[in-house]
């Protein structure tokens, strides 16, 4: 057993959309060729009337995080095989009846883009296993980088989205933001927001997925389930204190836990209903992972001591705040796998060690999708969940008015 190479991911995706599955799958060719001329593809899984909601699963953004496409291909294969044959799914902690499989496919618009950065993955799997970025070449007059065979710079796709991308303006000069304007840094944000074809493919697909209401970007490592936001602590009371408000430029990115607190008192607005939902569904995934092989993942807000800008999950969630016609898309990043004895082994565990991780994250994704599909198929008065920003603790109380 071994990690899927770039060609295998593409072939597996095409097989999942083969004629026998044509009634409920569609292979999508993304419009932007990568820097090295590769075509990217995604798959849409849904049958019947317009979906009541949807989930967008993204993987393979960071080249060296080899297991992410393998997780998503495993998920797609299990789901499409089970739906076509009218059977359930049972694998390493996942147990889903045929009725639940039908519920997911019949009620959800599932969009899976497993290999967003094939150039980077190919480079990582053949030349430089620690390569993280895409393969944007150095421009005319730019200095070559000492890493990446001098072919750099390459751009960190997950710092290139149009969410507070201009961090020198948007964040406090005191904020330890984990991104960079240095083309040779492995967290280089790129020359402009959404400058990269790989980033543009992700957003193109989001634009054309009007039923999608959740977005999950699969990364490694750390055993975390992170929810919005990543730029600063969350708050639920002041909608004006938000990324949209230029009055807070230069004040973002200092978490309250910094010694002396945050002198600017900035926190990013996240409606309480969204926070409750993000934590609740994060806990669903956490529990599914624990049930699979006993691993414990933490559910928490994405910001820690080190804030981020230009990330996919915050971009996806930010869109409806900027354009009310767009559906709200709540965002997660899953960081699979524990830290191991070396950094390379943390990113690409020996494949036998990767298998249970594939199974546990697959279990989490099925639990997540099944919960949302169940809500759509069987709407009922919701429970009120009272949550604290930045915490995964919650209390519940019935309200019955929704």
């Amino acid at each position, binding site marked *: 057993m*071994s*990690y*899927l*190479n770039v*060609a*295998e991911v593409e*072939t*597996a995706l*095409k*097989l999942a959309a*083969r*004629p026998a599955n044509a009634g409920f799958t569609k292979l999508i060719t993304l419009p932007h060729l990568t820097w090295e001329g590769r075509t990217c593809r995604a798959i849409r899984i849904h049958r019947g009337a317009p979906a009541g909601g949807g989930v967008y699963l993204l993987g393979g953004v960071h080249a060296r995080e*080899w297991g992410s496409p393998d997780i998503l291909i495993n998920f797609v294969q299990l789901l499409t095989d089970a739906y076509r044959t009218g059977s359930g799914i049972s694998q390493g902690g996942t147990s889903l009846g045929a009725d639940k499989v039908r519920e997911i496919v019949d009620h959800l618009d599932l969009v899976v883009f497993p290999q967003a950065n094939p150039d980077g993955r190919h480079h990582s*799997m*053949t030349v*430089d*296993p*620690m390569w993280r970025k895409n393969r944007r070449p150095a421009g005319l007059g730019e200095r070559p980088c*000492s*890493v990446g065979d001098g072919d750099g710079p390459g751009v960190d796709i997950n710092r290139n989205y149009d969410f507070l991308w201009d961090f020198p303006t948007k964040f406090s*000069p*005191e*904020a*330890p*933001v*984990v991104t*960079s304007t*240095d083309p040779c*840094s*492995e*967290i280089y944000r790129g020359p402009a927001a959404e400058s990269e074809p790989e980033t543009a493919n992700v957003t193109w697909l989001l634009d054309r997925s009007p039923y999608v209401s959740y977005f999950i970007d699969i990364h490694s*490592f*750390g055993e*975390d389930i992170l929810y919005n936001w990543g730029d600063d602590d969350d708050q639920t009371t002041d909608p004006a204190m938000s990324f949209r408000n230029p009055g807070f430029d230069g004040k973002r990115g200092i978490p309250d*836990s*910094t*010694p002396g607190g945050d002198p600017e008192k900035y926190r990013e607005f996240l409606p309480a209903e969204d926070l409750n939902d993000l934590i609740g569904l994060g806990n669903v995934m956490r529990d599914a992972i624990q049930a699979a092989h006993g691993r414990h993942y933490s559910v928490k807000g994405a910001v*820690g*001591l*080190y804030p981020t800008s230009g990330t996919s999950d915050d971009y996806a969630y930010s869109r409806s705040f900027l354009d009310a016609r767009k559906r709200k898309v709540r965002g997660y990043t899953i*960081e699979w796998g524990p*830290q191991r004895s*070396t*950094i*390379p*082994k943390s990113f*690409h565990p*020996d*494949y036998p060690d990767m298998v249970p991780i594939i199974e546990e994250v697959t279990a989490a994704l099925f639990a997540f999708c099944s919960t949302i599909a169940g809500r759509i198929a069987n709407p009922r008065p919701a429970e009120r969940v009272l949550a604290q920003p930045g915490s995964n603790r919650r209390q519940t109380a019935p309200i019955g008015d929704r």
Partner: protein
Amino acid sequence: MSRIHITLRGSDRESMADLVRVHGVRVYPQTLKEKTEGFQVDAVVDEAVIGQLVDAGYEVDQHEDVDEAAQDSLQQVGRGNRFAAQAAAFEEDER
């Protein structure tokens, strides 16, 4: 230049934030831990930077050369295309 995995220890959160905003170190945020005597975080740096961090007051444990250690991982990647025969069979059926 070799890139080395290191563990950095500092006395407080402020010093850990300085790793990014002052020293430009590529930290791995998910490895940040609070210890009884301060904080620690893992990072990957050029070998030449290690001395500067020690001079700046950080305790540094050196681990592996990440690029050298990572070469072993290449053996874990699939060769050829394990799905090719299946794909060819489906294409044949289509005809």
